[in-house]
């Protein structure tokens, strides 16, 4: 029997597969498709201090082997999430990782502190890289000093392990990773979306109301693999890898690159069963390539 378990700071995962933030809401819709208890973990949609409406529509566009999104962190606010969404998710035997975002350090800190009151939440994913909001988000994700500061401040107030979600839109991802590791991050989550744009030929305007959006899906997988491979050689905290994961082979590729677990985003839209199917297929793929457990694989592709 292939051992799919993996242990990460604050997380005892039965398998390394989890839906990525923003691509699975708070699980309700996908719970109609399969039993969410099957998942290694669930990363919830970003929570902010207060309710946000987000950007105008259109918010998504299709691209070759990918998509652009500019949702703009729409969410009911952290209190409502703790009151209505977390209890729903805690019906399932899986770990809840709460993605948190903000426009200011104060907002991040407030959201992080609020999640201390939600004992069902196992870890925080600190989204310092959302490209689709006017303030905050992206600056935190591209400046190592700001990234370190928000990480340290959140660590100070939070009782939970903190996984910092890195933006790929930087010249030097290793520098970012080291900065947040030093500031106390328990793990990394990478990559968020690449900033992109599509122009509508008819209107002659950017198709998304927000003009730019985040590029996700299979198109960005090579960028994700490269960054995870590089970063894993320079930090000692674990990485939740993501960016285009669609098949069990992709999961293996991310683990080889140095990720310890894998999140699946855009692929849920094509196939709502994708996470469940990946969990089913992973043992035979590991076996095919000569591995007997997930922990056996991690970082095997990394040449030091």
């Amino acid at each position, binding site marked *: 029997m292939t051992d799919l378990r993996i242990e990460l700071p604050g997380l005892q995962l039965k398998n390394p597969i989890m839906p990525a933030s*923003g*691509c*699975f*809401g708070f699980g*309700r*819709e*996908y719970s*109609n*498709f399969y039993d969410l208890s099957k998942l290694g973990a669930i990363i919830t*949609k970003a929570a902010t201090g207060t*309710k946000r*409406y*987000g950007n105008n*529509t*259109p*918010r*998504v*566009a*299709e*691209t*070759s*082997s*990918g*998509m652009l*999104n500019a*949702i703009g962190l*729409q969410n009911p606010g952290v209190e409502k999430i703790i009151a209505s969404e977390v209890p729903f998710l805690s019906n399932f035997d899986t770990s809840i990782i709460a993605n948190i975002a903000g426009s200011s350090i104060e907002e991040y800190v407030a959201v992080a502190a609020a999640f201390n009151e939600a004992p069902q939440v196992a870890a925080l994913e600190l989204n310092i890289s959302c490209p689709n909001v006017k303030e905050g988000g992206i600056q935190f994700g591209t400046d190592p000093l700001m990234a370190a500061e928000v990480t340290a401040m959140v660590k100070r107030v939070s009782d939970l392990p903190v996984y910092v979600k890195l933006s790929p839109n930087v010249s030097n991802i290793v520098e970012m990773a080291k900065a947040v590791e030093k500031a106390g991050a328990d793990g990394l989550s990478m990559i968020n979306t690449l900033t992109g744009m599509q122009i509508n030929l008819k209107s002659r305007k950017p198709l998304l109301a927000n003009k730019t959006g985040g590029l996700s*899906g*299979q198109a960005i997988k090579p960028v994700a693999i490269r960054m995870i491979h590089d970063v894993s050689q320079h930090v000692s905290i674990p990485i939740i890898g993501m960016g285009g994961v669609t098949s069990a082979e992709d999961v293996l590729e991310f683990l080889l690159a140095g990720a310890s677990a894998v999140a699946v985003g*855009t692929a*849920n*839209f*094509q*196939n*709502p*069963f994708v996470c469940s199917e990946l969990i089913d297929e992973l043992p035979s793929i590991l076996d095919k390539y000569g591995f007997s457990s997930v922990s056996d694989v991690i970082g095997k592709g990394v040449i030091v």
Partner: protein
Amino acid sequence: MIKKVEMLISQRRIIALDTVELTLKNKYISQTARPGQFLHILVEGHSLRRPLSIASINKVAETITVLFKINGPGTKKLSEYKNGMYLDVLGPNGNGFQIEEHDNTILLIGGGIGVPPMYFLGKHLVEQGKKVISILGFQSAGHVFYEDEFEALGRTIIVTNDGSYGEKGFVTDALRLVEDFECYYTCGPLPMLKAVTAKLNDCSGYISLEERMGCGVGACFACVIPTNDHFGYKKICKDGPVFHSKEVSL
């Protein structure tokens, strides 16, 4: 409940300029779909599914019909699918049209590719013994489809933008030709919906909306529309695509 199903293409017809009708076989969806719901269809080579309204169902033959206009690369590709091939489909998605028991005469207003859901609804209403009047708008004579089908349901007025068939102008220009309806249902391009709801502001009505979608099931917040109560919103894919005309802010 939305399921992910394989649907056999049992018939493919070009029914008007750039307009394709696909008849799909699937038991579950043919038995459960309601007027106004849509299918979310995976098209090879495309990362996002394409939403298409259900244009009719046949519970006995266990088939579902969709109609679509070739609009971009995804619908182009879908138009090349052949009989005997299978489609990967999520459905039935969304909430259908709400039907008020007490209404007896109903006006259907469909524009272009907004016509298909009107047909499913019209058939359903007639089965329930209601009287249906239809106003269908198309670009030109070549784009007209399903005229006979709608005629079979009740009085049908065809409008073309260029006047090459039926009345000339927009569907709203034809409103003066009908009277005495208790409720209207409409689907079509946004400018048409805006014009219709403005003109029929005093009537009770339901509109079916379109928006670019990610998940199509309510998880990604791609397809929201603000509601008329302050700061509220609805998801078109899950709470809609049908809304009361007063509920959302177009």
